[in-house]
């Protein structure tokens, strides 16, 4: 089979574009993420004994294409915000987002505040969160946020928070 030179050029340019996209996807801003859970991809990567360049690229593509979409991320952030503003513990907040562009994917998430405490860190709330894709790939985490010293906003209790203690 003879592939026209023009077609090879198009394929190459697409491949280069994909590589540039992968490069810049790592440089994107992370300020939109309320919790580290939403950074993770909802998929299983291909595990082979002898990975070659193609395997690495396919895995990169799988991880990139199954990340939480922007609209779903906004819904998850809104659910966290609503849960934190609600004084009750044990109330479940649920969201769902259907992605119809390309292959249909159903993203969903749940938030539930399980503990509110007042200790040396101040007022802190701990919640269970879960995000899933097509009810198949499920990620779960336990996250804590504490009220800032000026009591105006909740700050994620991560390494930066504990470094200030």
């Amino acid at each position, binding site marked *: 089979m003879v592939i026209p030179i023009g077609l090879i050029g198009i394929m190459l340019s697409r491949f280069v574009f994909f590589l540039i996209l992968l490069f810049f996807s790592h440089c994107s801003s992370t300020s939109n993420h309320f919790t580290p859970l939403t950074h993770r991809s909802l998929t299983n990567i291909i595990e082979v*004994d*002898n*990975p*070659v360049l193609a395997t690495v690229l396919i895995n990169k593509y799988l991880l990139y294409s199954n990340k939480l979409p922007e609209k779903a991320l906004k819904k998850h952030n809104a659910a966290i915000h609503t849960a934190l503003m609600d004084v009750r513990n044990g109330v479940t907040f649920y969201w769902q987002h259907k992605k119809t562009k390309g292959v249909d994917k159903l993203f969903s998430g749940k938030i539930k505040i399980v503990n509110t405490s007042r200790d*040396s860190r101040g007022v802190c709330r701990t919640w269970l969160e879960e995000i899933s894709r097509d009810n*198949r790939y499920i990620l*779960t985490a*336990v996250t804590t946020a504490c009220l800032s010293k000026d009591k105006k906003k909740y700050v994620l209790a991560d*390494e930066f928070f*504990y470094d200030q203690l």
Partner: protein
Amino acid sequence: MFWLMNFFMTNYKILLLFFLILTPSCADWRVAMKAKKHGCNVPSTNYAFLEIAGIEPTGTTKDFTGYYKYFTYIFKKPFFDVEDRCRHSRIVVHALNENNDFKVFKWSNKNKKTSGKAVVTMTREYGRKICKDYYSFISKETKGYVYQGTACLGPHSSLSQKAIAFNDHWIFYPYKTNQSGGRPILESWGTLNDIDHPDIRKSKYKFHCTRTPWRCR
């Protein structure tokens, strides 16, 4: 200048041998081995060493990553010496032994401009074991590193994740966001099957399956 080049060209094998002998002797490996011998091997100060020491050859192309990590590590300058590693290990174990979450335990060495601190962020009790999540901070002059890990007291099941280190009855595991660090859990396809202990997520996370069945599918 010419004689130097000539000397190098004729005696390059001897120079290479000296280089290979001297470089690892001042590298992080030697310091880490010494710290381990003294029982100062909590993962927060020896993480790279413990990772390298745990690499096993698989006979596949995955080994290249291991080789790369190994060769970049053996030429690394140690961040802490044995004395500081022992100080930090003691602080981490002390923070774990104290029944006081969120209390910050610190040490500092003004002569070497090094310091460290440890804080326990969560204590979890199970049927036969107790696990603690902690943060460890180490710094030298303007450079600093942070490590998040889990340490457990109790039996180490074959289903638990691979332990990184053992120190003063504490077993150290990698940190997991879903609290499965150190617990005997078999995780596959997003389902958690805990044999010994009830699942915290399921016990605290009940939905109204009759009213909203789509949440329980």
